[in-house]
């Protein structure tokens, strides 16, 4: 990552990002390298997804990244029939939560999955998804 006056990498996250600067901006670099990552506190071991710069358990800010791998269980989802401003072209799409045990992940379900293939409790994995204009998010797909 080259040096920038303002590190606003996070503005590339999702269809529309409402945040530009954050201490966990390396998350975006990881997405670009096909990694979806959370943080772990080096002081007390607390695991966080979404990633955080600061540990509320021990107040340390000494964090390390870990990659999400393996599969999580689909806790719930919904298929959106209409969308807020800025997301209309994405409709229909599905938001969902996966339970990995130590942490959970909120995101979208891959758009190429059929509704009939989606069941609460099914195992899914989280993968990087490339959007138009070099934007990035992540989606869940069947294992």
């Amino acid at each position, binding site marked *: 990552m080259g040096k920038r006056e303002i590190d606003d990498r996070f503005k590339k996250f999702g269809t*529309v990002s409402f*945040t530009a600067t954050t201490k966990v901006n390396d998350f975006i670099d990881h997405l670009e390298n096909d990694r979806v990552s959370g943080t772990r506190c080096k002081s007390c071991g607390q695991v966080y997804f979404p990633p955080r710069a600061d540990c509320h358990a021990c107040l340390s800010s000494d964090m390390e990244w870990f990659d999400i791998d393996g599969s999580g269980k689909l806790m719930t989802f919904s298929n*959106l029939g209409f*969308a807020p401003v800025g997301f209309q072209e994405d409709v229909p799409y599905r938001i969902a939560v996966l339970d990995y045990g130590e942490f959970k992940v909120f995101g979208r379900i891959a758009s190429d999955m059929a509704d009939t293939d989606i069941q609460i409790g099914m195992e899914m994995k989280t993968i990087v998804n490339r959007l138009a204009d070099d934007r990035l998010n992540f989606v869940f797909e069947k294992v």
Partner: protein
Amino acid sequence: MGRVAIIGVGQSQFVRSYPGAIRELVFEGFKESVTDAGITSKDIDASVVCSAPEYDKQRSPAGVFAEYLGLNPQPTFYTETLCSSSSTGLKLAYSLVKSGLHDVVAVIGFQKMSEISSSESQERMGRGADIQWESPFGTMMPAYYAMFAQAHMDRYETTPEDLALIRVKASTYGQLNDRAVYRKAVTADMFADSDHIMSNAVSSPLRVGDCCANADGSSCILVASEEKAKAFCKKPIWIKGIGAASASVNMSGRDIFTGLSAAREAADQAYKMAGVSPDDIDVAEVHDCFTIAELMAYENLGFAEPGKGCELIRNKETYKEGRIPINVDGGLLSKGHPIGATGGSQIRTIVLQLRDEAGDIQVRDPQIGLVHNIGGVGLYGNVTILGRE
């Protein structure tokens, strides 16, 4: 330290688009409450103004209202917990009175949502969620609550038809409420008819009929010390229990999707403080921003076991004549949901019920009532228990 009472309640007509300024909208609820209490602005020691600020062009509306309502030079404060702002205001007013700092406090809730479009409004409401990690996926309130509906239906016997029954109940009473936005009948047949707008998908499994509408409106609740309440008021309604809790804003921080943990926690606090149990509640107002929200409230408040909420509505136990009448003013589903004013409107309904002044929707001789008011997707839970004694 003495008890704390509600001595006056008011709300404006809830409308799609209020044809006036926010100070004028607020005047309507305020006027009704001071008239109800038989007091004037000079008897009010402080005010707490409650709304979600992203709809307002006016910065710091509390100061504007204090002047317009004749509440200068008394102090005024602003508070916000999304859709439960005025329940939070009630808790603050209770604390101000209970501490002895003030004797009479006005809790003024308002929202004029009509100045922005419905889709812009959805986007703003979606930003009541986690804007860093969730909003970039395109979130909105119906979709979040739909995830809870999906999980509830997957785990229990709840069906989309059960949710429709909750809307049918709401409309039964909404037709009687001349302050409500939506006063037409809604039937289960409308949900079953794929050509009817009520059955149109919003975010699966929620349909148009499962969702409340935006509205403009104001409410005002006057809170007083025991001494002032007895001096001013023939029928003070006492604040017996008041609970408030929070939960993770990001859905990845939630352990279950079949209920709202903050509602459960707030209910536990309120029941404990009031020294009552769910069986003691004679009438309740719950936060039915979506039909699934009312169903989860049945369970989170202990009116039904987890997973059994559907039986309450199937058996009409939450109708006016039922075991536990709920939202017999039509609820948010009929009244509309002017964010900052909603909690005050719910409190007003329960106060009128406990005074036996609820007219067509009066429940028979209620002694204890409950208000359940949620901010965001269970981000903030507020439960208030009121009583005649």
